[in-house]
């Protein structure tokens, strides 16, 4: 199936439409809620929770002995939450730092989950087939009811987000201060953590436990590059997430049998890469360009002010001087002299240069100008 065929199919084919819609909504909610994880500096918590969800899924299967994605999600939710509380407990009760606690819980739970999975594989029961798809997700298993669940959860999260926007914002910025204002920071913290857990659990079926945290973090990290406004960041992250879902599904569906989850994550990764390089304020490219331009400008200005200091010792400011005397000045090159001439700051005749009125005036006010620019 090529891309054009795919686009036609999205609007006609029920399954494809469901998957596309599902991954788009999932991407949006993950981006939205992931922004809070990133700003609360709990990026790794997402990874730990998603890995911790695996044994929950396996145990849920062992109990009901049949495949039921809602029950699995419940299992994932419970074991994800247990993992979260253990992480908090470890950091609070021992001397271990949070990265150690996260790593520990992540691998322990994941290991236990894998153990259960292999045990289940060997069970004399035909129902277990496909359970391992929770590792890397399988978007093809999405049903319309799953999509509806996602839409409802997204709606509820959005309402809570809008309701407690001010409280969440201040908690993210300055938790201690928030407490002194009389807000229950524990409640807000639990709210944010629940956001993270909910987003992860929703995405497990589609993206899988291993890659889920990328869904949460990548759109938010990309969005942060484009704006200095929290609201805009959350909206952008939702948009990036949604498009990661849509593009990812399109690519995986049009290229036979490419697993959807990894492709979605890779598309989200492309968003991040693009943002890191090309965003105007914080991107590497524009920073480098600004950096070089500033350096060149400063070098040019220094040369100009050096010439100014020579010129002002003469009554006639346009009195010609030998280019040779500039050679003592570090930062001077033929090229910079050429640039100054192009700007009509100096005139060059043979081996002599002279300052123009404009150049003299500019040089006299150079420092003041630089200061002014900075203040603007």
């Amino acid at each position, binding site marked *: 199936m090529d891309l054009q065929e795919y686009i036609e199919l999205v609007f006609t084919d029920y399954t494809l439409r469901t998957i596309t819609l599902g991954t788009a909504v999932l991407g949006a909610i993950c981006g939205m809620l992931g922004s809070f994880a990133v700003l609360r500096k709990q990026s790794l918590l997402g990874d730990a929770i998603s890995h911790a969800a695996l044994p929950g899924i396996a145990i849920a299967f062992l109990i009901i002995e049949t495949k039921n994605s809602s029950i699995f999600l419940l299992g994932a939710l419970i074991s994800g939450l247990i993992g979260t509380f253990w992480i908090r407990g470890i950091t609070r009760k021992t001397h271990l730092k949070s990265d150690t606690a996260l790593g520990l819980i992540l691998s322990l739970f994941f290991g236990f989950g894998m153990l259960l999975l292999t045990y289940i594989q060997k069970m004399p029961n035909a129902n277990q087939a496909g359970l391992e798809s929770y590792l890397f997700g399988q978007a093809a298993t999405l049903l319309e009811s799953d999509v509806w669940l996602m839409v409802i959860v997204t709606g509820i999260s959005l309402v809570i987000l809008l309701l*407690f926007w*001010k*409280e969440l914002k201040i908690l993210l910025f*300055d938790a*201690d201060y928030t*407490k*002194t*204002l009389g807000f229950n920071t524990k409640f807000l913290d639990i709210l944010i953590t629940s956001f993270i857990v909910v987003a992860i659990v929703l995405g497990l079926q589609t993206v899988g436990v291993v890659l889920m945290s990328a869904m949460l973090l990548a759109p938010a990290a990309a969005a*942060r590059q484009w704006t*200095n406004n929290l609201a805009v960041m959350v909206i952008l992250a939702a948009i990036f997430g949604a498009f990661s879902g849509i593009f990812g599904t399109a690519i995986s569906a049009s290229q036979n049998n490419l697993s959807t989850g990894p492709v979605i994550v890779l598309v989200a990764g492309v968003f991040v890469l693009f943002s890191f390089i090309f965003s105007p304020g914080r991107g590497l490219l524009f920073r480098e360009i600004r950096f070089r331009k500033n350096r060149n400008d400063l070098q040019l200005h220094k040369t100009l002010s050096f010439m100014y200091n020579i010129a002002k010792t003469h009554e006639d400011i346009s009195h010609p001087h030998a280019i040779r005397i500039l050679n003592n000045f570090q930062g001077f090159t033929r090229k910079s002299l050429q640039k100054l001439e192009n700007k009509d700051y100096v005139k060059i005749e043979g081996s002599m240069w002279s300052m123009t009125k404009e150049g003299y005036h500019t040089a006299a006010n150079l420092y003041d100008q630089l200061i002014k620019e900075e203040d603007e």
Partner: protein
Amino acid sequence: MSKKIAVQIDDLTVAYNYKPVLWDIDLAIPEGVLMAIVGPNGAGKSTLIKSILDIIKPIAGSVQIYGKPYKKQRSLVAYVPQKGSVDWDFPTTALDVVMMGTYGSLGWIKRPGQKQKKAALEALEKVGMLAFKNRQISQLSGGQQQRIFLARALVQNASIYFMDEPFQGVDATTEKAIINILKELRKSGKTVIVVHHDLQTVPEYFDWVTFLNVKKIATGPVKDIFNDDNLTKTYGINYKVAVSQ
């Protein structure tokens, strides 16, 4: 002394793990003083403020603000945390941070409106930062960030101000600007409590001082108790080296 007591601390003891950080602190801070809390590193100065404000849970002791427990008097108290305690790359503007000072009086869910914005702009003006109101906070200098924090506390219009090292990493001009604002606060009857590091400026800036080194060493008017005896008790015999630095 007929002055009212703004902050009354009794038997306050705080410990991280096993070692006490604050030991049995009794302290009465009279209304309307500009007080420095001084002491060496690890003396528990920040911890004292944080446990008064219930950010850290003490093992024992009580804190009363104008005769009532702190939790009932939150609206009378404003806090300026250490500048380094937050991430200044957070996506927000100077005005937005100052607006946060109004959140406490707004309470849950209610959004700040024109009235809150006006108060925030006034506070920004007071600290000389009005021109920077729309600046992203990471693009402010250390001194400007400190002023923003101060403005955020001013917006709260509290009676008691707790400040954790407001002069840390600011230049001389900002330090003067901040101390002038603090003195103005005192003039209008507010109580200001400042964790302070520079012993040399204590007599110039403050009228009240508390010496702290896990235990309370002394507290009272600067002119009466800011002397060699108390400094030595607090900092040890080498305190003069610290002062001359």
